[in-house]
């Protein structure tokens, strides 16, 4: 007799635990306001990344197309993966002196691990992380970028 009582009570307690679980899911289906899905491409306008977000490395340019990169290669040394290549050239200044400036700031996005070490190492705050995260392209070669804009110059007073 005891066994039968135990048998039946075990069934009821089992059913009770099952209903408990169903109550949780039942709560959510009856509260559609708790839905957390974001409709991504549609909400592009309202989707704002945090200021700190590390999207990709960019070289900041002022309105007069001037940047702050002196071509010191500190970022190239700091980078663990060889993501950054700095190609320098020598130009003749108006006063006849020769000066070293960057020719190309090459950035291989495909190799970047977004570790932020280059930004920290930059002595002139020339580069920063942008918040752009849509990096998908159809051709891998498009991921190799030249960060300095054409005909850009070194900002006055940065050395």
């Amino acid at each position, binding site marked *: 007799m005891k066994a039968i009582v135990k048998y039946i009570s075990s069934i009821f307690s089992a059913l009770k635990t099952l209903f408990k*679980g169903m109550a949780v899911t039942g709560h959510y289906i009856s509260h559609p306001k708790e839905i957390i899905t974001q409709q991504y491409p549609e909400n592009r306008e309202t989707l704002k990344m945090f200021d700190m977000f590390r999207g990709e490395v960019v070289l900041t340019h002022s309105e007069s197309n001037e940047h702050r990169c002196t071509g010191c290669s500190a970022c190239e040394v700091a980078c663990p993966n060889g993501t950054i290549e700095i190609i320098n050239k020598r130009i003749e200044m108006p006063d006849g002196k020769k000066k070293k400036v960057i020719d190309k700031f090459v950035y291989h996005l495909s190799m970047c691990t977004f570790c*932020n070490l280059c930004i920290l190492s930059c002595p002139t705050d020339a580069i920063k992380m942008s918040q752009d995260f849509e990096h998908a392209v159809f051709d891998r070669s498009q991921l190799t970028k030249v960060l300095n804009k054409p005909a850009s110059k070194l900002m006055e007073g940065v050395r």
Partner: protein
Amino acid sequence: MAETATNTNTGKPLETQEYFINMGPQHPSTHGVLRLMLTLEGETIHNVEPHLGYIHRSIEKMCEKDTYAQIIHLTDRMDYLSSHMNNEAVSLAVEQGLEVEMPERVKVIRTIISELTRLSSHQLWWGVFGMDLGAITSFLYGFRDREMIIDIFEETCGARLTMNYNVPGGLMFDIHPNFQKRTKAFVEHFRQKLPEYDQLLTGNVIFEMRTKGIGILSKEDAISFGVTGPTGRASGFSNDVRKHNPYSAYPQVEFNEVLREEGDSYARYKVRIQEMWESMSIIEQLIENIPEGDYKVKTKAVIKLPKGEYYQKVETARGEFGVYIISEGGKSPYRLKFRSPGFSNLSALNHMAKGVKIADLVVIMSTLDLVIPDIDR
């Protein structure tokens, strides 16, 4: 049973034979690219042989070429669910070599973020565990709460998973002004949602049948196999590095080391759920009064560790993570060894899975909480 079955036509015993199944490298419940060779009789497992190395990148070799600051970003990519703790281990080992003491602010922030990372890892584990059992809904609930933590990380350090927030000598940035507010809001939110986890799975009769008494690991075996973390603690092996070798701000906070004696899958589950409560209590103790001060100690641009050997262990979400640095005085280590918890935990899998059903193997693997890059390194 198979031995007694006979052919009804000839009266001779039926021939049975063991057969092999490759579970993985592409399989939903191996959580990555783990390959298990199963030897089966019917549905009963006779032997499990893990084949590793599908994503072995030889991080230890890479570290021999990198500077100490560069090494840290590689540790993100081992156990990516406890990336902050891995970073912390390397940072602490280097700081130990440099003999610098961290400011209180750094210690407290490191501890808070470590516990947040542990919470997020356990939440993801809970969701995936439910999914492995066939209750797919838990996956989404776990991710909902994890998302809040990930947002906190993103606001403070700019990355969601591979954070690289620790640097030798402190932190990369100071915390965001919203950090305290968001963290408090999260703890408040999660204190309400965690009981829901219990309602959905813990008490469920099917869940208990599937986990209780499955994959028992005795305390002696846990120690011998070096099974650490929640998995080891569920077997009664007291191994919490936060208690035994406290680092950062752990000496100042009060928390319990969650221990259970059963050593089965249910115990491992309960230990992790209980650890989430403990983590929240640690965060609550620290979040109100983050000391003012520097977030970083000034170090040389290129750190050179004095000649010697340094071993630092931390408690990650999966267990004891160790960094063993042999320095010859240069800017990169002569030899660097990562003692990853997943590798040791996996070595006990065959021992635990002998004689169980295929469905139980999935449960055991899930409660071991394996992260494959952590094993393969």
